């Protein structure tokens, strides 16, 4: 069993186009959610989201790449470039042959689908661009990362809705821990803020029209976000030998399935994943100071998640901090766990715990320290990152300070 550390991080999301901008926004409790700018927004009843603003593909990609990359692939490559540059790794020879890329994603190229459905259904055209399939397939992002960085080892995409990124990172972690790969590029991305993507979510009637307020008694639903988070997971000795800067240690994980309901979360399923991650990481409940919550801002998730944490941690639940950064960047669906892992890294490395913003009223069913509205300084030795997906698929990661 090898130790696994994070030696690079990259992101683009509603809070920033890189990690420093994103962490600064999280420290300041800034909200990246606002009116969305997409075609036909006036026909949507939900008109807000955590949209990436000011993103210009020109300059980042050449003309042929732009024609071939859906927005979710573009986000992924931006984040991967930042992460791999920070790690200072170049992949060649044996390292390239063994290292791979496992990313989480749920919807694939939704913008590509949306635009081409419009073209054939609405505009009545009978011909679509030849790149529709290579753009929309949800492994496109992982494949383009593998091509840009010469990663020839195990590479694929994991889809488990809102837990996709955590499942992907758990998979990458296992590969490095077992010795199968010295380095894995992992994380996830999503770009579902297009007409069809938002319209589909409207149908479920779990979306807020004004704000994401996790754990607050007046919460009224989730808000979609978009973007990517990508990390370099590296075997500890490999990182030490080359003098790499280590951001945090990935200490363990657990996955569970509720086997109960396609949308309603189960406390038992969440508990088994949280307790399993502690056990896998050989952590005692008292070691954990911070949990990055799944915290969607829906009635069902937030109370179920708090009850699960309270049960697993017992008396220690009153001493730990649990916050939902979705209040700031929105719910990135298949990419959400990746962007949220940044909050765990900030807590462990910088000693700053990101807040849950928009917290207005205590809810007796969410009676934990949710770090309301203002970031907090604290020495955090270990942190968990929760993800509980539709379909009852749960994945929790455990990280340690190094």
């Amino acid at each position, binding site marked *: 069993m090898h130790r696994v550390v994070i030696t690079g991080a990259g992101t683009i999301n509603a809070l920033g186009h890189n990690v420093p901008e994103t962490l600064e926004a999280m420290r300041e409790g800034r909200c990246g959610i606002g009116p969305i700018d997409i075609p036909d927004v006036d026909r949507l009843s939900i008109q807000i989201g955590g949209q990436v603003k000011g993103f210009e593909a020109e300059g980042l990609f050449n*003309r042929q790449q732009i024609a071939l990359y859906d927005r979710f692939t573009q986000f992924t490559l931006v984040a991967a470039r930042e992460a791999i540059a920070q790690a200072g790794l170049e992949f060649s020879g044996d390292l390239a042959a063994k290292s791979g890329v496992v990313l989480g994603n749920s919807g694939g190229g939704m913008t590509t689908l949306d635009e081409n459905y419009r073209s054939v259904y609405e505009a009545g055209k009978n011909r679509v661009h*030849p790149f529709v399939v290579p753009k929309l397939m949800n492994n496109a992002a992982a494949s383009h990362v593998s091509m840009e960085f010469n990663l020839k080892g195990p590479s694929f995409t994991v889809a488990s809705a809102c837990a996709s990124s955590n499942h992907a990172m758990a998979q990458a972690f296992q590969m490095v821990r077992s010795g199968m790969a010295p380095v894995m590029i992992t994380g996830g991305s999503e770009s579902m803020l297009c007409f069809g993507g938002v319209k589909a979510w409207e149908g479920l009637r779990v979306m807020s029209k004004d704000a994401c307020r996790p754990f607050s008694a007046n919460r009224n639903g989730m808000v979609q976000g978009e973007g990517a988070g990508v990390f370099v997971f590296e075997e500890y000795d490999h990182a030490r030998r080359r003098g790499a800067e280590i951001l945090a240690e990935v200490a363990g994980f657990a996955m569970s399935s509720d086997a109960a309901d396609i949308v309603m979360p189960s406390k038992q399923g969440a508990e088994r994943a949280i307790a399993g991650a502690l056990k896998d990481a050989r952590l005692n409940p008292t070691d954990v100071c911070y949990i990055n919550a799944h915290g969607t801002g829906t009635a069902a998730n937030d109370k179920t998640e708090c009850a699960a944490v309270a049960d697993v941690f017992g008396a220690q639940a009153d001493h730990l901090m649990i916050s939902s950064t979705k209040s700031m960047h929105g719910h990135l669906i298949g990419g959400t766990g990746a962007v949220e892992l940044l909050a765990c890294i900030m807590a462990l490395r910088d000693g700053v715990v990101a807040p849950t913003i928009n917290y207005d009223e205590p809810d007796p069913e969410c009676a934990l320290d949710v770090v309301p509205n203002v970031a907090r300084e604290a020495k955090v030795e270990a942190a968990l990152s929760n993800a509980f997906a539709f379909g009852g698929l749960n994945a929790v990661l455990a990280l340690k300070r190094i």
Partner: protein
Amino acid sequence: MDIKEQVIAIIAEQAVLEPSDVSPDSTLEDLGIDSLGLVESIFAIEEAFDISVPFNANAPEESDFDISSVASIIRGIETLIAEQKD
């Protein structure tokens, strides 16, 4: 622009070259156009001339459309335009 000039312009754009650098004798390989670039060029040609090109990327040699050189592509398109005019 006549048909020849239009086709050359489409192929040049795909190859990231000036139209003056694309000669009728060039093959797509000479111009650095790969299989995906070829399919994209055919799409652009279909859109530009509102025709349907009988090209199967799965078996290019069996297609009733000669892509061995720029000149053969232009000839094929001229024929298709004449056939599909009405």
